[in-house]
């Protein structure tokens, strides 16, 4: 027998975006059904690097990122856990004069968004971060950026939504979705049918299928950022580190493990990915170069995840251009963890009020030239 659920809003995908959207929709009093194929927060949202970082984002993301920043500040109140979130600061290193210039330029451009960036160089830099030695000329610090434990925070959003009355179904893949009159109809095998006035497509790297079902093809590709973590080490690093121009990034958690990222893993199939040996070894080499404290340390685990990337590396966020009541949010291109809750809140706002103060124009789904 097929179970039927009627609700205001149905959500496909229980990552940090879908989970937070469910939470904010429930707070606004709508009935919500969240369908998750795997476990909520087990995909990209639960396996990412854990960087909660605004610094370095394209300017068009900063309003959403600021909105998310405010939500991150209220985690215990919203989720009942701090999920090991720390506002440690995010320090982006400059290894050359050119890098430093581009950090300064970013600070100029992003003024007015409230990041509070500080450029720190020379003596002052070495005094504040002796552990970084002279491997950088200086850096740009965003004092209120930080990091969190993605394994804890991402499932917590869906759980908080469920506690407020959202229907959250895990191990429940949406295999078919269509619009029937003014209702979206979602089918999971023969077991479940959900009917809803609104549909949120927050299916991460797998969002393309939902978008295509409504005639909105998007050039979304899956890529797999490569991660490694060391055994616990005495604390030497209290800020989340990035490097201008990319490459390796790292943070040390309070328990002492150093998490580093860089390079790409590979896909086993559409749903699973593995770290790639060359990427892992290169990452280890680069990490040891950046942090000599790792010289005698061991990597105890490597992993990656499946993340949707767009050609311009900006996400798709906002209303469907073909189907009223449908909203998309995917394609975060490796940077959706920090911004995720802000996007969830914005989706809830769009559903409940039909509008949002967030500038979503750059994230329109139809911005990509049609592919042949």
């Amino acid at each position, binding site marked *: 027998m097929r179970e039927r659920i009627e609700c205001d809003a149905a959500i496909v995908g229980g990552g940090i975006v879908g989970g937070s959207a469910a939470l904010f929709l429930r707070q606004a009093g709508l009935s919500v059904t969240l369908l998750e194929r795997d476990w909520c927060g*087990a995909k990209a949202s639960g396996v990412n690097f854990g960087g909660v970082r605004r610094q370095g984002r394209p300017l068009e993301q900063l309003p959403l990122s600021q909105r998310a920043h405010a939500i991150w500040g209220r985690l215990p109140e919203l989720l009942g856990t701090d999920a090991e979130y720390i506002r440690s600061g995010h320090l982006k290193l400059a290894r050359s004069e050119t890098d430093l210039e581009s950090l300064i330029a970013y600070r100029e451009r992003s003024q007015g968004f409230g990041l509070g960036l500080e450029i720190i160089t020379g003596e002052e830099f070495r005094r504040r971060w002796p552990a970084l030695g002279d491997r950088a000329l200086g850096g740009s610090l965003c004092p209120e950026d930080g990091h969190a434990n993605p*394994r804890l925070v991402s499932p917590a959003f869906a759980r908080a939504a469920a506690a407020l009355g959202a229907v959250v179904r895990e191990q429940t893949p949406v295999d078919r979705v269509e619009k029937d009159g003014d209702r979206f109809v979602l089918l999971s095998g023969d077991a479940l049918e959900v009917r809803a006035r609104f549909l949120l497509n927050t299916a991460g790297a797998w969002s393309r299928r939902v978008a295509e079902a409504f005639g909105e093809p998007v050039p979304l590709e899956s890529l797999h950022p490569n991660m490694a973590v060391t*055994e616990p080490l005495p604390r030497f690093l209290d800020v989340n580190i990035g490097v201008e121009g990319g490459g390796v990034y790292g943070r040390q958690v309070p328990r002492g493990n150093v998490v580093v990222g860089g390079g790409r893993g590979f896909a086993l199939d559409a749903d699973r990915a593995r770290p790639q040996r060359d990427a892992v*070894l290169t990452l*280890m080499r680069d990490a*040891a170069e950046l942090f000599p404290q790792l010289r005698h340390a*061991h*990597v*105890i*685990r490597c992993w990656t995840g499946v993340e949707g990337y767009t050609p311009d590396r900006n996400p798709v966020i906002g209303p469907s251009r073909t189907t009223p009541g449908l909203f998309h949010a995917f394609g975060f291109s490796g940077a959706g963890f920090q911004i995720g809750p802000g996007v969830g809140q914005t989706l809830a706002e769009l559903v409940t009020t039909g509008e949002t103060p967030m500038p979503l124009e750059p994230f329109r789904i139809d911005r990509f030239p049609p592919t042949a």
Partner: protein
Amino acid sequence: MSEVLPPVIVGAGPAGIRAAERLVAAGLRPVVVDEAARWGGQIYRQPPDGGFTRPKTALYGFEAGKADAVHRAMAAIRDRIDYRPRTLVWNCEDGALDLLCDGASETLPFSHMILATGATDRVLPFPGWTLPGVFTLGGSQVALKFQGCAVGRRVAFLGTGPLLYLVAYQYLKAGVEVAGVFDTTPFAAQARATTGMLRDPATLAKGLLFVGWLRAHGVPIHNGIRPVRAEGTERVEALVWRDARGQERRTGCDAVAFGLGLRSETQLADLAGCRFRFDEADRAWLPERDGAGRSSVPGVYLAGDGSGISGADAAELAGERAALGLLEDLGRPVDGKRVKELDGRLARIAAFRRSLSAAFPFPADWADAIADDTMICRCEGVTAGAVREIARSGQAREMNRAKALTRAGMGRCQGRMCSATTAELLSRTLGTGPDGVGRLRAQPPIKPLPVSAGAERREVA
């Protein structure tokens, strides 16, 4: 093109050595990789170089003849194989293995590979199990065999399985005081299962001899017990246990040797993409293999205790059998009579194994008795209560979620020491069978990998 790569064997225990011997006999030159400095594997582990003098009869007892035969088999093919001792295989990816030797990483492509990775002790936690002086049974035997050391002056032997009596016996023979054998299996169960063990009278006789010898030397043997705790602050001072009637008792000792049978080292099979199934007898997820040791992945073969606990004799046979399967798949002629013989002997051992695991059943109720504040994950310090809570609250219904949320299995050992416990705790809290909570996915590196290996890459030889 696949023929040009030499076959690779991981593990130079009885399974790996017999596999290599068979491949050499067919004119191939296999690569044999083993983390240990010398060949022999676990049971036939050889002492290090450096002046050890005990003869094999002292080291291996009744098995000295077999040990010697296995060691000689390897010595005889030594210059016809590419032997890589002190080399850890830390990853398997896309038709190649990643090796770590002397701090440098090297990638070794293969078309055909035999995994003969063996087993280590299976354990469940009890309060005090992380105290200095509590060692695994296998570890206690390694100390004796490999280092000429006892783990204490007065040692309590705790757990179940044939190794329990064997190691207690070996300690006694080495002149160490044995404080007692504390067997979790009720006496009646063992007696019943003995009937089945008559299939292998020699092994049964050995077992009875160990027990008889221990009794004759005044060693108390307690059946049907459960551990309560190991006492001590900086090291073990006593084992507190509950006897079969539920009475709490205390035995003074300065070491506890502890194990509940063995668990297979399956990480590489997992990384190689082999399909797993739940095995009732081993109460564990094991890579599937056919009679010849073929896994579900073409070119990947499994032999010995690494893909299901069958003991040393079976490991030798299975190693040879896997090599024959591999040769057959390469289109080489194989001796059909030998194949039949091996299959027959392996089948007989399998039947015997079943009665052995009936004789020493896994004490599944132990998991219920683990107090919430007992540490189950030695690496990350996770408690039983944390795992139960995550299951009870509906946050985790399988192993990998439990790991993500509690860190059980996330530390240096990659769940080798805690995943049996986590599986029991989860499945019993959720009311599923032991097969109902899945298994931990293996992740590279399967053992800690020095960060410095990133800069020390060796090109393929």
